[in-house]
């Protein structure tokens, strides 16, 4: 096929000879020229920084420079593993992300099933428009709205609670309440947007299946369980794998927009600690080592989840 198309476009090519790279460069130079631009970009802004990872194995001193600093092997890793902040960051990262997985991951599935049950197209469309909205807001704005609504002194939710005779609740100003608010705001932000992918999968279901099930006497929830849910199972597994890979990550912007001085117990996650150690305190080696630790665990998690999914007979992502 390659040879055939080559001979069509370039009459001087010799069919019998195996084509060298020079031949393709000459024939498709325009394509290579095009790809050169993004390639250079990726090398400068994605691959060049990766060389910076070596300082995780060096005692980086700004005065001695990148290459002049001394190699120390895994000493920096040993150092960070013994820090109490490190243990807390790992615990918080896992805690926040696993709880997120329990709520923010399941809510879109529930909503998508409910939306799929509604027959009125217009009702569905209006609801979707409203539900997608929070996804388009930045975390700063969500954080600001969160404080406007939930702060203990002047938040409207507390005003309502007081009006109804209850006591004011420190939604964002006490550790455990903060954790719950953090999760709730996450659900709020992502629940609508997350339905799209499931609704797309559901739209592929043949309506005759529902009709046949109805004829056989299946009720609404029976049909949901036996027809709708199986149609999105593969999507659920795929997304679950991708989310498991992020269990060591979590959004820096989300935490930073919602944190405050009163609630420090759960806000130190790995990305936040990387920021504090590296950019705030200037300890680049330690922060880089922590970031690398996170990436490596993340990759191991994705690969493991993918293997398990394949063992269970699902498609996987890799």
């Amino acid at each position, binding site marked *: 096929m390659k040879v055939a198309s080559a001979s069509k*476009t370039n009459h001087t090519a010799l069919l019998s000879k195996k084509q060298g*790279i020079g031949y*393709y460069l000459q024939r*498709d130079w*325009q*394509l290579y020229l*095009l*790809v050169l*631009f*993004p*390639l250079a*970009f*990726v090398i*400068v*802004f994605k691959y*060049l*920084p*990766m060389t*910076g*990872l070596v*300082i995780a194995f060096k005692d980086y001193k700004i005065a001695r420079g990148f290459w002049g600093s001394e190699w120390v092997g895994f000493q920096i890793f040993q150092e960070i593993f013994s820090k109490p902040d490190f243990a807390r960051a790992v615990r918080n990262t896992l805690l926040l992300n696993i709880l997120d997985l329990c709520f923010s991951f399941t809510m879109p599935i529930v*909503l998508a099933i*409910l*939306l799929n049950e*509604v027959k009125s197209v217009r*009702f569905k469309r*209006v609801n979707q*428009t*409203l*539900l*997608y*909205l929070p996804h*388009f807001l*930045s*975390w*700063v*704005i969500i954080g*600001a*709205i969160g*404080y*406007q609504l939930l702060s203990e002194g*002047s938040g409207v939710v507390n005003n309502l609670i007081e009006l109804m005779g209850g006591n004011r609740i420190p939604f964002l100003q006490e550790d455990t309440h903060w954790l719950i608010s953090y999760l709730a705001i996450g659900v709020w932000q992502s629940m609508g*947007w997350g339905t*799209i*992918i499931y609704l797309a999968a559901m739209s592929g279901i043949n309506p*005759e299946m529902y009709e046949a099930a*109805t004829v056989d006497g299946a009720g609404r929830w029976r049909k949901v369980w036996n027809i709708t849910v199986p149609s999105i199972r593969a*999507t659920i597994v*795929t997304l679950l794998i991708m989310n498991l890979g992020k269990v060591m990550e979590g959004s*820096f912007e989300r935490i*930073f*927009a919602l944190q405050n001085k009163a609630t420090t117990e759960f806000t130190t996650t790995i990305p936040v600690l*990387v920021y504090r150690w590296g*950019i705030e305190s200037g300890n*680049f080696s330690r922060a*880089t080592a922590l*970031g690398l630790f*996170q*990436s490596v665990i993340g990759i191991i998690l*994705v690969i493991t989840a993918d293997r398990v999914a394949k063992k269970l007979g699902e498609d996987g992502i890799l």
Partner: protein
Amino acid sequence: MRASTGNPAAPRKGRLDIWELLIRLVLIIASLACLLPFLHVVSKSLSSDSFVIANKVFLWPEGITIEAYKKIFADASILRSLYISVIVTVLFTILGMVLTICAAYPLSRTQFKGRRVITFIFLFTMYFSGGIIPDYMNINNLGLMDTIWSLVLPLSFSAFNLLIMKTSLTSSIPVSLEESARIDGAGHFRILISIVLPLSKPIMATLALFYAVGRWNAYQDALFYIKHETDLRPLQLKLYYLVIQASESFQLEATQVSLSNPEVLKASVVVFATLPILCVYPFVQKYFVQGVMLGAVKE
């Protein structure tokens, strides 16, 4: 209930059973939960201080006034950060689209030798990156700290968007069309500009929106890279310092004694920063939905 929906010939619409009502109720509550917070913040921003201090504003402005908005428009630093955000978003989107097209078109051509290797080089960045600190040091070494280029350049290549563009080009451009152009003597540049791009307008609109909204909303990199040049803070970072950290006062407050409640000002700044997104949202929503679905195709 079962009997009436049992006949496939009878249309099911118009029938409301108790479950349907309950489902609709749940969905309405969820939708209101997404809408009401905005209504409240907008109401607050338009209310007069005394009502806000007395905690009397809920979903409707009390003692309507636009005093707070006047202050925002009189604050040069907020307007400047809006300007920075617009400039950065426009440059970022243009650059992002050029990079995406330059990478996606060659990689979607089957005769392009080495496309597997190059595709791998691009997509590997989706799964592994240097991380916060190596990126930071790289920006520092390149001398981009405290310039708008630190916000325009590093993130402008997105492997995810490349994947969507590539999938779209492979599936939507008929090979025969391209072949006939080639027989007529058109080169790759010609084919790209006169055939492929005009046919890809919808996907290009979608990706441009992905880039623009993503750039508009992000503040993490600005927090890291814009440290000393406070004039270069984009709107979201400005908002972060104003509202979340509350470490920065409004410029006007320094010069004249302010009677305004900071809560009202905060609310109006939030509305001010949300408005650009809310204005385009109804028009762009469908493009985003299409983008998400295209992105899902690769799974």
